[in-house]
């Protein structure tokens, strides 16, 4: 057995806790392939019926934003306060809007 086969790859686990809710990241685990990752995720993260559906994604398939570029990435939204309903003054008599 070659050494590069030694450690199982890493998978990120997403669980839908109940019908109608989104899948939520709940952790990671090592598994040989997707089918095994699903089985292990079932055993590790849903032992008390915490889920009705599981997604597994190999960790290396995920591209994450770079925290160093947080500024460039998210700041452009900071000065666009007119995107929020509270930006607009509406007379009280109008009631809820």
């Amino acid at each position, binding site marked *: *057995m070659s050494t590069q086969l030694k450690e199982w790859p890493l998978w990120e686990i997403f669980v839908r806790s109940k019908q109608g809710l989104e899948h939520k990241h709940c952790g990671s685990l090592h598994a040989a392939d997707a*089918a095994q990752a699903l089985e292990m995720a079932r*055993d590790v993260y849903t032992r008390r019926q915490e889920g009705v559906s599981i997604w597994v994604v190999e960790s290396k398939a995920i591209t994450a934003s770079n925290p160093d570029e947080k500024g460039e990435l998210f700041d452009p939204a900071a000065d666009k306060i007119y995107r929020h309903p509270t930006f607009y003054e509406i007379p009280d008599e109008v009631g809820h809007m």
Partner: protein
Amino acid sequence: MYTQSFNVPDSPGAKTVALAPSSDDPALQAAFDTRIDADGRIEPQDWMPEAYRKTLVRQISQHAHSEIVGMLPEGNWISRAPSLKRKAILIAKVQDEGGHGLYLYSAAETLGTSRDQMLDGLHSGRAKYSSIFNYPTLTWADVGVIGWLVDGAAIMNQVPLCRCSYGPYARAMVRVCKEESFHQRQGYEALLVMMTGTEEQKAMVQDAVNRWWWKCLAMFGPPDADSPNSAQGMRWGIKRVSNDELRQKFVDATVPQAKVLGVTLPDPDLKWNAERQHYDYGQIDWAEFWETVNGNGPCNKERLATRVKAHNEGQWVRDAALTHAAKKQARSIKEAA
């Protein structure tokens, strides 16, 4: 929460962590300090001082090892549980502990250490785990007492860790704490049942309490006065409550439980202090504690040997799973072609 893979490193199993740069940049340090002071959370990709990372890797991996080695003393009793019901409960509890180990290894992996590295640390004897698991489980009452007192002490310790400054560790602890309450309750209830039994069974419970009580008090670690690293842990928001404070909380919570159960806690100095509004308790044998931590407890060698044996005997399973996965993948590529 554990994914930070814009930089994919070498080995297939390693966490896809782009290690945050660790420089002595005062601006980075200041930003880190500000976030800690504001009770903010640090995430894997954020800059952190090297000492903070090292402390976390050590603490989280030791915590993970403790969960894994902690399966052994109770595992001894799975095949000898007194009923099918108790056996199913014990299997479920031991399985939970395996899961706790996994949550914690995953959290440590976000700091750039690999699972293999950590296991190597454990198996070579370099890494420490909670000393409490180096004592033997002599009778069925030990299983109950472990649930009640050992898991009880662990809960005291783990609840404040849910607010730890390192995000992945805090989230793992939330998951762990949700599962721990069953561990303590099943143990206490098993003892309640034994206490309705014969004189011999009651004596068995008392004997187990006598053997475990002081070891459980030592689980919280040395007194605050002798814990030089505690202050730094507090400063970093890794530790939230001091050793002595946690120990006191544990004593105060346990005394009334012992009374309901009908056992005495083996400490002549244990008594209510109206002035402090806490129970006073006697001296812990720290010399014995350190002996055990340093490898000379009654079961250190046996535990490590059992763990290494289990790991080695599972090697063919890990290899076979990879080979099977590779074969399946090759077949599906061929079919698609």
